[in-house]
C-alpha cells in the first residue's frame, strides 16, 4: 500500500497535468462560435456597461467621421424610401422597421465592443432579446455585411464578426453570373477571400460582390466588397481577394436584420435533411 501511495505521490503532478489538459482540450475541441458567444454573454452581463463607456470614449474622437457616414446613410435611405413609396411616419425609432417586401425588418443598434485584431473576433451590441433580437439575425452597416448574431441576453447581444476565421457565407457578383464561398483569412482586416468560383466565370477586378439568397441569415444583395485580385487554383476553380465595404476600425452604429421566415425555412430544411433517403 505504501509503495502504491509513494507511486501516486510521484506521478500525481504529471497525472493531474494530463487530466487538466484533457478536460481543457475537450472543452476547446467541442466548442463552437455559439458556445463561445454564450460564454461571452455571461461576462457581458457584468462588464457590458463598462465596455460601453470605454467604447464611447474610444469612438468620441471619431464622431466627425461617424456623423458624415450617418448623413450619407440617411440620404441613401431617404432616396430608397422615396423610390419605394413607403410612408416613413410608420417607422418608429428603436423598433424593428419593416422594409418593402416585409420579409426583412431592421433594428438599429450601437456597437459596445468590437474586436478585429484577433483570429476569432466578435461584436457586442447594445440590443438584446428584450428588443426582439434573436440568434442568427444578420448585422449590417451602411448596407454592407458585418456579421450575424450568435447569442443574446436581455439587453446585449454577441455576434460573430465577418473578421472571424469561422465566419462563412456565400457571395455572388451583382449580375449573378458566378458565386463563391466567403471567409476571412485571418490577416488583413480589409480583405476577405472568395473561394471556389467556377473556372470559366467571367471575373473582373472591381466586380461588386453581394450576398446570395442561399443564406437564411443575410438578405440577398447585401454588399460585401469588390474584387481586388483573383487567381486560378489547380486549373479547377478561382479564388479571389475581396476588399470589404465595412470599416471595422470605425464601426459604431449598425442595423440588425430580422428575416421573418427564418424559423419556417430552417425547420423545413432540417426536416428534409432528417427524412431524406440515405444512400448506402
Amino acid at each position, binding site marked *: 500500500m505504501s509503495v502504491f501511495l509513494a507511486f501516486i505521490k510521484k506521478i*500525481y*503532478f504529471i497525472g*493531474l*497535468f494530463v487530466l*487538466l*489538459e484533457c*478536460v*481543457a*482540450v*475537450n*472543452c*476547446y*475541441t467541442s*466548442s463552437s462560435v455559439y*458556445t*463561445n*458567444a454564450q*460564454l*461571452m454573454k*455571461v*461576462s457581458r452581463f457584468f*462588464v457590458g456597461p*463598462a*465596455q460601453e463607456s*470605454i*467604447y464611447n470614449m*474610444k469612438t468620441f474622437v471619431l464622431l466627425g467621421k461617424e456623423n458624415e457616414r450617418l448623413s450619407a446613410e440617411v440620404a441613401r435611405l431617404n432616396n430608397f424610401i422615396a423610390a419605394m413609396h413607403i410612408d416613413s411616419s410608420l417607422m418608429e425609432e428603436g423598433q424593428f422597421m419593416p422594409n418593402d417586401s416585409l420579409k426583412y425588418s431592421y433594428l438599429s443598434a450601437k456597437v459596445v465592443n468590437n*474586436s*478585429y*485584431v*484577433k*483570429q*476569432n473576433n*466578435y461584436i457586442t451590441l447594445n440590443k438584446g432579446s428584450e428588443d426582439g433580437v434573436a440568434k442568427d439575425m444578420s448585422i449590417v452597416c451602411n448596407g454592407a455585411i458585418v456579421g450575424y448574431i450568435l447569442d443574446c441576453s436581455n439587453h446585449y447581444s*454577441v455576434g460573430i464578426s465577418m473578421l472571424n*476565421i469561422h465566419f462563412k457565407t456565400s457571395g455572388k457578383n451583382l449580375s449573378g453570373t458566378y458565386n463563391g464561398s466567403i471567409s476571412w*483569412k*485571418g*490577416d*488583413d*482586416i480589409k480583405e476577405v477571400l472568395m473561394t471556389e468560383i467556377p473556372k470559366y466565370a467571367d471575373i473582373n477586378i472591381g466586380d461588386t460582390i453581394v450576398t446570395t439568397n442561399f443564406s437564411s441569415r443575410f438578405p440577398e444583395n447585401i454588399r460585401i466588397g469588390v474584387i481586388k485580385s483573383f487567381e486560378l487554383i489547380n486549373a479547377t476553380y478561382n479564388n479571389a481577394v475581396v476588399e470589404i465595404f465595412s470599416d471595422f476600425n470605425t464601426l459604431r452604429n449598425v442595423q440588425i436584420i430580422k428575416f421573418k421566415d427564418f424559423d419556417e425555412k430552417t425547420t423545413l430544411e432540417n426536416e428534409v435533411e432528417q427524412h431524406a433517403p440515405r444512400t448506402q
Partner: protein
Amino acid sequence: MTRFFEYLFLFAAIVALQLLLFDNIQVTGYMNIVIYPLFVVLLPINTKGGILLLSAAAFGAVADVVSGTMGLYSIALILLAFVRRGVLRLFVREDFLENIVIPNSGALERGYFLSYLSVMTVLFFTAVMLLERLTFDYFGFTFLRIVISSMVSILVMYMLQLPLSKHKNRGYFGSL
C-alpha cells in the same frame, strides 16, 4: 491566508486589465497584448505542484469565460504551470531558488527574470496561436504574430510587475 487574498486580488486585477484595457488596444492583427501568463509567472516559488496546476486551471477557466475562448487559455496556462519549475531552473540555480518567495524582478536578477518571463510568454503565445488556427497553412503569419505579440506582452507584463517587485522576499503588500 493573506497570501491567498493577495493572489485573489492579482487574479481579478489581471482579468480586469486584460478585459477593459488591453483588449481595447487594437493596432494590428500581428499584435495581441495578453497579460494572462503573468499570474502563473508570479505565483510563489514554493507553491505545491497540484495547487500550481489547479490555480492555473482556475485562472484559465475565468480567462476563457471572459474572452469567449472555451478552453484555449486554460490549455496554455496549465502548460505554463507544468513547465514553470523547469523554466526557472534554466536560469536560476536550485539553491538560489530556495531563498526566493516570489519570482519577480526584485527577487531574481532583472536579466534572469526577463529570460524566465520571455520563455513563459513565448510558450504561451505559441500554444494559443497554433491552437487558434489548428493549421500550418499560414505559418509565416502565425509565427510573426507569436513574435510580435510576445515582445509587446513581455514589455507590458514586465512594467506591470515592477510595482509588485519592491518586496523581494515578501508578499505584495509586505506580508510573509
